[in-house]
């Protein structure tokens, strides 16, 4: 199982958990599993077309990755809001 690392406001939607174990062999599968565990997060990271929102960044270690990136046991997936897309 990989681990998704979350910050506010996503952490709040995960009942305050900043680190959540998820199932999945790719980033996208892992994020879907995250949504299934915490339904209130539905639509926040993935939009209804199933893609990562434009102004959300996903990292594995120091590398920004796309949804099809593979994950392994204990891979750390960090989900953060991008510096783009902010509300000026």
């Amino acid at each position: 199982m990989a681990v998704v690392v979350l910050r506010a406001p996503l952490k709040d939607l995960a009942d305050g958990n900043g680190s959540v174990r998820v199932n999945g062999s790719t980033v996208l599968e892992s994020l879907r599993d995250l949504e299934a565990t915490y339904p209130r997060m539905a639509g926040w990271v993935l939009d209804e077309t199933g893609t990562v929102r434009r102004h959300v960044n996903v990292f594995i270690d120091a590398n920004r990755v796309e949804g099809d990136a593979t994950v392994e046991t204990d891979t750390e997936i960090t989900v953060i809001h991008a510096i783009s897309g902010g509300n000026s």
Partner: protein
Amino acid sequence: MSDQVELLVGTGKGLFVLRGERGGAMAIAARHFPGVTVEYATRDPRTGVYYASVTDAHFGPRVWMTKDVEGEWEQTAGPAFPEDAGEAVERIWVIVPGEGEGVVWAGVAPAALFRSDDGGRTWELNRALWDHPSRKDWQPGAGGMCLHSICPWPGEPDKLALGISAAGVWLTEDGGGSWRRGVKGIVARYLPEDAQGDAPDLCVHNMYRAPVKPERLWMQFHGGVYRSDDAGETWNDVGSAGGLPSDFGFPMVIDPKDPSKAWVIPLTADIDRVTPDGKLRVFETADEGDTWTARSKGLPQNDTYVTILRQAFCNDGRDPLGLYFGDKSGTVYGSADAGATWTAVAERLPTIVSVRAS
């Protein structure tokens, strides 16, 4: 009735709940959703439930609801497109209580209508409008392709009129099972003359139904103010003849008890979206649009170049009628005498997107 009024002010930095004496200074009773845009907030008078359309610039748009406007808000399930639509909701422009029990409507961008049958907790896309064969010819306005005006018919839950920028007026008499355009008489002066006939890209800016005369609809168009007396089938230009400084604008209020009365706040032009001549003026018609008169007592009349957005003008339904609007520069103005006199009731707020009396 209490002389207090509560306003829901949606801004670029959250929802502000203002309270105070009608026509007087108002205090901030609560602020919610800090840092994110609240496109629209309203209260369903049938149930007392408050709704807010909140667009997080990173994490997307959704509707929130509460019964306690100073307390916690509950995230609803949507509105969101079904997977086969291949689109994601960008903004939720308007939330309107329907006529049936538990029915609430939401208009979004890209232009679509969503219906809730459980008081806003879950939402379903109206497929007949979404799948309409003319959709391929619709064009977005400057604010995107948005469904911003939803006009239920009092006592007739199957009748609805919609305003879409820029796809004109859409009418249904079967609860949204089928739709037809109601645009006869509207002239798109922003198009070449040869292209004006039967143009699909009609840029409706705002539209309301007169509650006591439901066959009457009022519209602020991209260029022109129109009135329909046959439920949106045909439209009459009522903005060109009598006294408006410009035919361009967004905000509009209809008198809830007198269908001959309406108010607009014109902007200079589509290429200069500020108040004309440096004066902040609300214009009233009391004769069905034949003439318009400036109502500006108490409003700044010098060096004032502000913008009032589509949803940022409302009435409070009281007698005499209270009127309230907010500008993009963060000031809310109020009148407790139907626009005869005005006061700045709140200042130095973030960019004001919507104002509704609750």
